[in-house]
């Protein structure tokens, strides 16, 4: 069995030939179960790297393998399915569909992934259970997503990323919109849940002080080179 959940080999990407933004990733690997912090300033290409890993963008050359399948060889339909099956995504902010209620937001990935919904016997119950473990209010199912505080929204996003136990969680600066105390509480809860789930975590941040929680700290500049 492949020990790498992410394996990138000689990947080259740019939007267009004229674009000044061209990146090359010679080699990047993350093992199963690892918690990795990817450090980088904005504009360093980290979002592009995440988009490549999630299969939103296709590399021009090289290969990207996620959980054993080379996603750049997949059709766009299978790629979307593969993403739904394997990756839980937490954005910086505005993670939730504001008009839907909290439970619908959490179970949304299950709608697109047979694999993940097979892991869940009762969708509503396990969504509520995740909420409880993430210290969200007991009556959270009464709320519309838009009525939650930012910290609560981010925790709901964690629940959504983890429901159905995907093998990889990708978090793009999930704490940047939280203050320091809330950051710590959020990270404690997220780590606890990710460990329970035995998922791999790839989190992007520019905050070096978060490093101690992670198994590994990688600087984006070591991963990719800019070809200007």
């Amino acid at each position, binding site marked *: 069995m492949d020990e790498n959940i992410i394996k990138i080999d000689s990947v080259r990407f740019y939007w267009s030939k004229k674009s000044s933004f061209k990146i090359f990733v010679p080699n990047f690997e993350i093992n199963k179960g690892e918690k990795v912090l990817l450090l980088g300033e904005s504009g360093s290409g980290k*979002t*592009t790297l*995440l*988009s490549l890993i*999630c299969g*939103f*963008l296709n590399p021009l050359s090289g290969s990207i393998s996620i959980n054993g399948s080379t996603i750049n060889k997949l059709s*766009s*339909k299978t790629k*979307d*399915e593969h*993403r*739904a*099956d394997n990756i839980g*995504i937490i*954005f*910086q*902010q*505005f*993670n*939730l*569909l*504001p*008009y*839907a209620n909290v439970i*619908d937001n959490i179970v*949304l*990935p299950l*709608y*697109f*992934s047979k694999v993940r919904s097979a892991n869940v016997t009762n969708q509503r119950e396990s969504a509520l259970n995740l909420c409880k473990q993430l210290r969200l209010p007991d009556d959270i199912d009464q709320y519309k997503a838009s009525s939650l505080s930012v910290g609560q929204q981010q925790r709901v996003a964690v629940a*959504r990323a983890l429901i159905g136990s995907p093998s990889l969680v990708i978090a*793009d600066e999930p704490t940047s919109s939280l203050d320091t105390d809330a950051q710590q509480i959020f990270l404690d809860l997220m780590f606890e849940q990710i460990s329970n789930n035995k998922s791999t975590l790839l989190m992007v941040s520019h905050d070096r002080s978060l490093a101690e929680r992670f198994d590994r700290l990688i600087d984006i500049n070591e991963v990719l080179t800019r070809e200007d």
Partner: protein
Amino acid sequence: MLLKLSLSSLYARLVTAGMTVIAISFSLMLYMSVEKLRTSAYTSFTDTISQTDLIIGARASSVQLMLYSVFRIGNATNNITWESYLDVVNKEEVDWAVPISLGDSHKGFRVMGTNKDFFARYKYRGGQSISIDKGYLFEDLYDVVLGAGVAEKLGYDIDTPLIVAHGLQSFSEHDDQPFRVSGILEKTGTPVDNTVIVSLAAIEAIHVDWSTGAKIPGQETPIEEIRKMDLTPKNITAALIGVKSKLTIFNLQRWINEYPEEAMTAILPGAALQELWRVVGVVENLLLGISIVVIFTTLIGMTAIMFSSLSERRREMAIWRAMGASPRIVIGLLMLEAIFISVLSILLSVILLFFSLSILQPWIDYNYGILVNVEILSLRDMYVFMTFIFASILVSLLPAIRAYWFSINDGMTIKI
């Protein structure tokens, strides 16, 4: 799930979506009411006279003959002689004939001389007969029967005396021979409503002392004497003809048109009405055209609203994509929304239409003589609805394709 979320997304934008629905449903309603009025006006118009096979008169164009004989608009260029009329009536193809004599007026309403057969033979709206509302048909020489409109507008009732004026706009009146209202007809929505009907003999009687449109000076025949006279008309203006067999209509028509002793024209009322409608119908077509343009405008408006909501929904699209939704689903969501909006608009417009029509129907019928058919949606309406839904899907494609590009290119970036 998708349906539910799409609905709640729409619900979250209730004001914008609601205004769009209202705008679209009003334009659809405008279209449908114009269409309904148009078809109803057409039916009412072409049903002004029915079950009459031919109308004859002096040589004229069919539209002209139709206009003066049925609609009482304009004047006959000439009369036909009673002898010619009898020649036509005596043809074996002819089942019945009703002579009409026009030319005089009463306070702006046309006076028509005819016989009692007119009330039995004149049919409208696909075979409906004229019925009498009050009183009785003319018994005496000086009895008149009023159309419902005349009685109402002039405030006349049974036994009201009236004087017939000579010609249409003339100051000389047949004041020596006063008439009396003997009956008032039910409202028909046809020109009969605005007609003063007397017997043919009465027309003859009031012109006893007249010659070539002027009163003979000094001559005044007493009424008692007139009553004793033979009042068979010498001329009539037109006649309604019914034939025994429809197959003979064209032969009879040709025979009349080629009648050697007098220049006569026979027309098929249906064909003449159609021809006339082509002239009148231009306005309706214009209205129809305008309401179609209105629908197009609202469709464009809907697209504009979808485009403007797209920037705020770009975020939402990125979330959908991250959850594993394919771009197809993202497009589908937008189209679903367009379908929702158009279906809702259609429902609302139908409700609005029937609500307003059922309120306005009696009024329209009363004032314009157009019976608007409220009950059913025609197959044509269904086609229009389907076309509209299809068109709204088509126009929603534009913002949807844009959303597709957003969702492909945005990837992990969430644009705010």
